[in-house]
């Protein structure tokens, strides 16, 4: 699109090297970003993308190499210098004050406090102009706490533009958006590059990278392994370059549904802050079937997962397992009834960082034989079990005594899979099972879920990634504000049609709304 060779280089990372002890997180990484260009930074988890961006933004100091913005070297380790040089970053987790308005959030930190009032009118005009120029529709007087996730992201981008950013870095910006919101975001980004901004776009989603980026830089093990023009490549080639070998997603044959193993009848839970609870929800998980749950993050998926995992008890309604109502419900009861639970956050909920692999592997089974007898732990037995999981699930680690915090996300997830799948569970709750994993690990997790389905397990797959839901699920529900859509069979809905439901349309009238 842009004549990359002739266009001005606005950002140059020159042979950046960063070591953490024995680990080289970035190994002589070089990257040029031209004016009016979108470069996608692609790589597995742990490939060094985050480290590289932290160096660019002054959070870390590089051991070697330098960062040049508009031909000027940035002083290392100084975030303010990056800001002043025109680099704006939109983090995956927004850095907004919920109790302030959009206007206040955008101007926060740019003006001395005693001149606040007099600058306000000018700020308002500037924000209005930026909103119009970049299709960033958002009410400057709305409180950020009342905005949707998509709107908050627009505020973040406005914030960067307001500070005259010429270079935008977007870290996994589409992870929290509906397909429609993603389209809106891409429209904004296209407008931005047309006006001469330059964008670094970090993503795992190959089709988005193909859609928005002009060039793709692929990192693996801290090194740049490939740099391609999107015009001359395809998703398959990108995926192959990312993991270093030709990978194919597992082939998904339709499942053969059996009897319902878990049923929710009119289950309602209380709202939790801004997150809606479940609104009289009915759901049946059938044996031999993957039920996909699509939806924008924060629409009650967590509440549903908590009920099934035993973490919360419905305020009203019934939970039946194999046809029998569950009276006593707790995490341990859920495990005892054969529910394998893969939690959304493997770092905070799924594992204990300073525990060894062995100690993590027995978290759900330590209290009964063979892991313990009459209150005494059988550590040799636990270690043998862990060795078996390490072998069976191909976990790369120095050994069962390793603290799990030293493992990559993929290996951590494999340990959780091993922990919950070894008992041949009848029901599997997989909440965002592949978030943040590299493609190799993603395929591995999906294969395991399909294998479990084929031997008759009922699987509930919760994901914000519509592609993942559509690829794996035999039936799909959409969740919005704690309500559940009807069941859609595989292949009956297009992404756009599901997107309409994700945006909250189509739900029957008369169902109570979260206020």
């Amino acid at each position, binding site marked *: 699109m842009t004549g990359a060779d002739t266009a001005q280089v606005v950002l140059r990372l020159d042979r950046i090297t960063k070591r953490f002890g024995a680990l080289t997180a970035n190994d002589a990484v070089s990257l040029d970003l031209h004016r009016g260009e979108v470069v996608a930074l692609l790589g597995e988890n742990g490939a060094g993308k985050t480290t590289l961006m932290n160096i660019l933004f002054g959070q870390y100091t590089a051991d070697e190499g330098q960062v040049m913005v508009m031909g000027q070297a940035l002083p290392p380790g100084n975030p303010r210098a990056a800001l002043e040089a025109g680099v704006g970053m939109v983090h995956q987790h927004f850095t907004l004050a919920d109790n302030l308005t959009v206007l206040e959030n955008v101007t926060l930190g740019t003006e001395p406090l005693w001149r606040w009032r007099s600058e306000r009118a000018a700020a308002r005009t500037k924000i209005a102009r930026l909103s119009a120029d970049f299709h960033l529709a958002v009410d400057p007087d709305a409180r950020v706490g009342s905005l949707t996730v998509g709107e908050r992201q627009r505020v973040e981008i406005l914030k960067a533009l307001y500070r005259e950013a010429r270079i935008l870095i977007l870290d996994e910006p589409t992870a929290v958006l509906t397909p429609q919101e993603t389209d809106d975001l891409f429209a904004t980004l296209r407008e931005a590059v047309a006006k001469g901004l330059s964008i670094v776009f970090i993503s795992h989603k190959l089709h988005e990278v193909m859609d928005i980026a002009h060039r793709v830089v692929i990192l693996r093990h801290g090194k740049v392994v490939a740099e391609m023009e999107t015009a001359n490549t395809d998703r398959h080639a990108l995926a192959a370059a990312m993991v270093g070998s030709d990978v194919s997603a597992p082939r998904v044959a339709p499942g053969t549904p059996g009897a319902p193993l878990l049923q929710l009848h009119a289950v309602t839970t209380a709202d939790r802050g801004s997150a809606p609870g479940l609104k009289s929800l009915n759901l049946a998980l059938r044996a031999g079937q993957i039920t996909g749950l699509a939806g924008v993050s924060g629409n009650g998926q967590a509440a549903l997962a908590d009920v099934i995992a035993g973490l919360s008890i419905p305020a009203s309604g019934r939970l039946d397992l194999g046809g029998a109502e569950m009276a006593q419900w707790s995490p341990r009861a859920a495990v005892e009834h054969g529910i394998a639970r893969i939690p959304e956050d493997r770092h905070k*909920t799924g594992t204990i960082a300073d525990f060894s692999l062995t100690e993590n592997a027995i978290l759900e089974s330590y209290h009964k034989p063979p892991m313990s007898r009459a209150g005494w732990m059988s550590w040799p037995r636990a270690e043998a079990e862990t060795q078996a999981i390490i072998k069976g699930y191909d976990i790369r680690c120095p050994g069962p005594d390793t603290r799990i915090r030293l493992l990559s996300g993929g290996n951590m997830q494999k340990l959780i899979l091993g922990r919950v799948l070894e008992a041949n569970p009848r029901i599997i709750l997989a909440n965002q099972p592949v978030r943040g994993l590299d493609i190799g690990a993603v395929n591995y997790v999906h294969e395991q879920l399909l294998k479990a389905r084929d031997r008759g397990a009922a699987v509930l797959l919760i994901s914000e990634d519509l592609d993942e839901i559509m690829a794996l699920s035999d039936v799909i529900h959409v969740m919005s504000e704690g309500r559940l859509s009807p069941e859609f069979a595989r292949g009956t809905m297009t992404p756009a049609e599901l997107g309409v439901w994700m945006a909250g349309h189509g739900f029957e009238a008369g169902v109570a709304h979260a206020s």
Partner: protein
Amino acid sequence: MRLEPIANPSLARSTLPPVLAIAATVIVASLLAMLAGANPFAVLGLILKGAAGSKFAVLETLNRATPLIFTGLAVAVAFRARLWNIGAEAQLYAGALMTVVLGTGALPWSATALLPTLVLVSMLAGAAVLLVPALLKVRFGVDEVVTTLLFNFIFLLFISLLLEGPLKDPMGMGWPKSERLIAEARLPRIVEGLRLHWGFALALISAALVWVIQRRTTLGYEMRAVGLNREAARFAGIPVNAVLIKTALLSGGLAALAGFSEVAGVKGSLTLDLSPGFGYTGIIVAMLALLNPLGVIAAALFVAGIFVGADSMSRAVGVPTYLADIMLATALLLMVLAILLTRFRVVRE
């Protein structure tokens, strides 16, 4: 300046800072000794000699370490599960109270029956004292730091009330002091002729038992899991509240043994100055030991040695014993800093 975590600290990284912390403590103590007009080498030498320079000194240090091992274990057990028990002082007095209530003639039994009973009842009393804040915490989310800390003062005043009233020794010439224990309730000396009572052995056994509980039992596993990540523990099905209650019972019981051992092994009666802050010093001991139950023994000996050594040094050269308090405070602060430096490196902006 910022802190950056170190993925794999080297051997030097993990051993050097604590050694430097001790060295810096010695230097601070020397400077203070010079300020007091004494020769720092003489002062340090006298502290060392007073703590370990003779049979008498060693036994005195072991005696002084005994209650600190108990309170150190109490704190280490609780802190390991992130239950912030600052109330070991009150639990200590609860143990001491039960010892004088039952040990001054109420139970006219032989020593073999009476002593185990006193151990058990003391532990139950200490456990009960910590049970209340623990229940308030798990039921209503009341911060146990506040409740356990403030309860120390309430309990000490309660003891004072008893010593001025029902427990007052009629033969005590008006002093607020309980009657003396009967002979069967006294802890005998380990070796006849040496001033070291069985409380010390009980402390060592307790430390070993706590270690076994933490490493070898499901309860210990649960305590460590709850302490490291309560959310993950709850998700995995560990009954977090029950574990916290059990931790409180164990911790309170251990602290109470300090009171039992001081009354039955050393003092023979209960007075308001039974503990010169053993409950609080237990926090220092536990932190210096990095919450390791076997480390508690070493830390308690170190702390007791400084106290005993400083007493003897003070008598010899007239430098105030406050030097011991300053040395311990410095050692604790520097040790916390040193532990931080074994895991993080300082990066200049």
